[in-house]
């Protein structure tokens, strides 16, 4: 099916100590295929993974490049540790591009088999540039050294159908299906800016294709714009040491220690093997952290209906290996099997729903006022198969619902769609409209930043109110954690380089509950260390969850439990054992900082990445509305009295809201100052040449960008 447009033969490079030393470049405009060499400079400055992605992307684009410019690239790379099997969470592919939502580099990571199989096929990184004339599929056969580009117009669009078809087509037989992985998006990706990428892996026990997502920032939208329907990689013969590690014995030892910890402690700690990331839903609600009805509150009595036990007992299939790459004993990728769909084009079919993860239950559930597990699973399924980033979709839809609640838009302006909190049928209908590119579905996928402008300019909405309640920074929608009472996390989100995603920092318990970082300096130190440390996972191809979603039994006795020191040492040991290098935990942070600062300068180069771009909407910092204030009146009154020396008894409600706001906004400014200093930035948020020099990143190309901004 589909005429072959191009064939290219290559000799797959042997992997030595985690690197194949080669990257693949394909220009889909003229079907040009090139092999590039991974230089020592790239390894030294960028390590791999997201570092390689950003390096190639920088060289591909100019400051005027936008998401749909032909020179924009989608770059992916798995990193030097990617594909090892002996530790949990070692199959992550890092993807970067210029985002349609933010106009700056977005990076997003996915599990699934694509990245490791790509590396085993000989490629440390993969650049896709240009725009194809007609829809194409790119197939990489790593065993035979063949790249094939073929026409794809006859293939279906939605991921669960497309990936299943492609997996069967390219596998020799049923046993071979585990050796095929597909990257694709879905029908909604081209009708908005929040299209995501699905990365597949075949589950032989369930006999179905499953997905993990590189979801954030519109990567699927870019794939569609390039007219790439799918990427397929096939590599048969995954064996224990394809990375040719320098010291397999150490990797084995560290891996077994970790697996034992997982076996002994998971059921007493987070139950990741039972329920995955959704284990925290009740805890989040108890601590007022579960975003509810567009982050207006942090929980709801109805949340018991979507508690972890409900999914475990009534919906999820248990007892099977659920990792998204070999060797992951954390196994957090859950499944609801034989799920009966009730709406949309696949209504009446029984499908496997991958999930739900925490973000799904929080976003598509509580944040939309939907406390119905079945509805959440159906939303989850359609977001996935239609290629929609469910975080952006949930946060954006919650914003639309609050606009409706506060009379800023009407049902008529939404094309008759009755989008209000709790209306699951309207949310599902919105997803189907987005898939078809019809009606309000065309607007809803544009993201909050663009919708604010449209609602104000076309519907006469109140611009100030929309700025306050639209949960986006830099154009990217917030991930699903309410955090009004954690100043450090306000920074963790709004100061994140690509936009408010929690993969840079999750400091809420450290800050708000355990009160371990009381001063601005403490918070700034945390907002230095954790974003740097977490960046490292993306450089080497690892998943963050095995770091702190389980901890050694004696972790609480260490000097810095939040860092999980023993696991940090595991990572240092594994890195050295794979690459043959000799880094320590400080060098690990330095590797990260090089890429972290590079990405910040990259953002500056693209026109965002200054102080003005780091402000949070007030909904992130404190109560916008009277109802919000009243929902935690005792807490807020106490703060007015204790922190500001005011007597809440003699001030009216609106004035209390205003006074608290002035205080919190000032706190946030002071936090920015402290963090900028700690990160070696000017007070305008620009990395200084001195700092770049200290970390060995005073490259002329970076200095050219920052120097005019000093």
């Amino acid at each position, binding site marked *: 099916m589909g005429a072959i447009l191009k064939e290219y033969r290559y000799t797959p490079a042997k992997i030595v100590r985690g690197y194949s030393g080669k990257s693949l470049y394909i220009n889909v405009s003229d079907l040009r295929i090139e092999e590039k060499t991974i230089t020592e400079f790239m390894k030294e400055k960028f390590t791999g993974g997201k570092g390689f992605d950003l390096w190639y992307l920088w060289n591909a684009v100019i400051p005027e490049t936008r998401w749909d410019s032909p020179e924009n690239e989608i770059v992916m790379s798995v990193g030097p540790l990617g594909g090892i099997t*002996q530790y949990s969470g070692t199959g992550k592919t890092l993807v970067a591009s210029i985002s349609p939502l933010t106009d700056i580099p977005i990076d997003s990571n996915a599990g699934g088999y694509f990245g490791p199989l790509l590396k085993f096929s000989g490629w440390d990184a993969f650049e896709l540039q240009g725009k194809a004339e007609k829809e194409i599929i790119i197939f990489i056969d790593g065993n035979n050294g063949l790249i094939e580009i073929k026409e794809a117009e006859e293939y279906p669009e939605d991921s669960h159908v497309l990936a299943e078809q492609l997996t069967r087509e390219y596998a020799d037989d049923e046993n071979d299906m585990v050796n095929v992985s597909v990257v694709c998006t879905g029908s909604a990706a081209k009708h908005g800016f929040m299209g995501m990428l699905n990365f597949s892996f075949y589950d032989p026990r369930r006999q179905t294709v499953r997905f993990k997502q590189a979801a954030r920032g519109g990567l699927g939208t870019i794939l569609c714009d390039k007219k790439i329907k799918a990427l397929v990689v096939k590599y048969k013969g995954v064996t224990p040491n394809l990375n040719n590690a320098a010291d397999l014995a150490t990797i*084995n*030892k560290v891996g077994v220690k970790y697996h034992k910890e997982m076996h002994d402690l998971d059921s007493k700690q987070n139950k990741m093997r039972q329920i995955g990331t959704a284990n925290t839903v009740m805890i989040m609600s108890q601590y007022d952290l579960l975003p509810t009805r567009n982050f207006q509150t942090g929980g709801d009595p109805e949340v018991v209906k979507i508690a972890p036990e409900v999914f475990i007992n009534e919906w999820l299939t248990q007892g099977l290996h659920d990792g998204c790459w070999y*060797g992951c004993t954390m196994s957090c990728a859950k499944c609801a099997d034989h799920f009966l769909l009730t709406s949309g084009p696949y209504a009446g079919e029984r499908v496997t729903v991958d999930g739900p993860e925490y973000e799904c239950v929080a976003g598509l559930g509580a944040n939309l006022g939907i406390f119905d597990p079945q509805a959440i699973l159906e939303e989850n399924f359609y977001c996935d198969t239609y290629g929609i980033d469910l975080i952006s979709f949930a946060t954006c839809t919650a914003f639309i619902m609050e606009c409706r609640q506060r009379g800023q838009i009407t049902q008529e302006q939404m094309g008759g769609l009755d989008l209000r909190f709790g209306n699951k049928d309207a949310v599902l209908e919105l997803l189907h409209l987005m898939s078809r590119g019809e009606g309000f579905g065309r607007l809803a996928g544009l993201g909050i930043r663009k919708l604010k402008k449209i609602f104000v300019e076309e519907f006469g909405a109140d611009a100030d109110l929309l700025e306050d309640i639209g949960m986006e920074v830099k154009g990217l929608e917030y991930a699903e954690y309410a955090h009004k009472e954690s100043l450090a996390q306000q920074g963790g989100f709004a100061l994140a380089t690509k936009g408010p995603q929690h993969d840079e920092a999750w400091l809420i318990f450290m800050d708000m509950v355990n009160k371990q970082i009381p001063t601005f300096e403490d918070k700034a130190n945390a907002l230095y260390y954790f974003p740097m440390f977490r960046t490292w996972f993306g450089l080497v191809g690892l998943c963050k969850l095995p770091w702190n979603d389980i901890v050694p039994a004696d972790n609480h006795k260490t000097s810095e439990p939040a860092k999980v020191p023993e696991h940090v040492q595991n990572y240092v040991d594994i890195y050295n054992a794979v690459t043959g290098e000799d880094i320590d935990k400080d060098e690990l942070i330095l590797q990260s900082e090089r890429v972290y600062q590079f990405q910040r300068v990259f953002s500056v180069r693209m026109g965002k990445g200054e102080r003005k771009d780091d402000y949070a909407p007030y909904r992130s910092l404190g109560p916008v509305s009277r109802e919000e204030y009243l929902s935690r009146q005792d807490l807020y009154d106490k703060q007015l009295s204790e922190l500001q020396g005011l007597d809440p008894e003699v001030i009216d409600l609106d004035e209390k809201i205003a006074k608290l706001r002035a205080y919190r906004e000032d706190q946030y400014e002071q936090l920015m100052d402290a963090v900028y200093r700690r990160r070696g930035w000017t007070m305008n948020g620009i990395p200084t040449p001195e700092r770049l020099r200290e970390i060995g990143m005073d490259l002329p190309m970076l200095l050219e960008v920052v120097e005019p901004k000093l």
Partner: protein
Amino acid sequence: MKILTHKQELCNGCLDCEVACSQTYYKTSDRNYSAIRIIENNKTYRARKCTQCGECINMCTAHAIYRDHNGVVRIDKKKCVGCLGCVGFCSELVMFYADDQEVPFKCIACNVCSKACPTGALEILISQVKER
């Protein structure tokens, strides 16, 4: 199912069983390559060896562990990706690995050690062990 049993009262701790096992499968007398390990405690001897419970079968991330027609839990070394998850997850601590081996190993009730045992402490039985 076939299962290796060990009678503590007959065991003299000579370790002939360990040597027989490691010699047969890895051509070495190093006990780190044996799928049976004799543990001494106050002149009494306990054997660590697989109970064939099968707990490792479902957790295997590469679907490489299976129960054969004799009920013995076995590793398909062609499918095994050497993640060693089964080693960490074995409640009996009887899934073993060695530093220079890519894949783990375990007792497959082959009878080599019981034949080597001078006291008759080891025996292969056909048993109705509860499968996990």
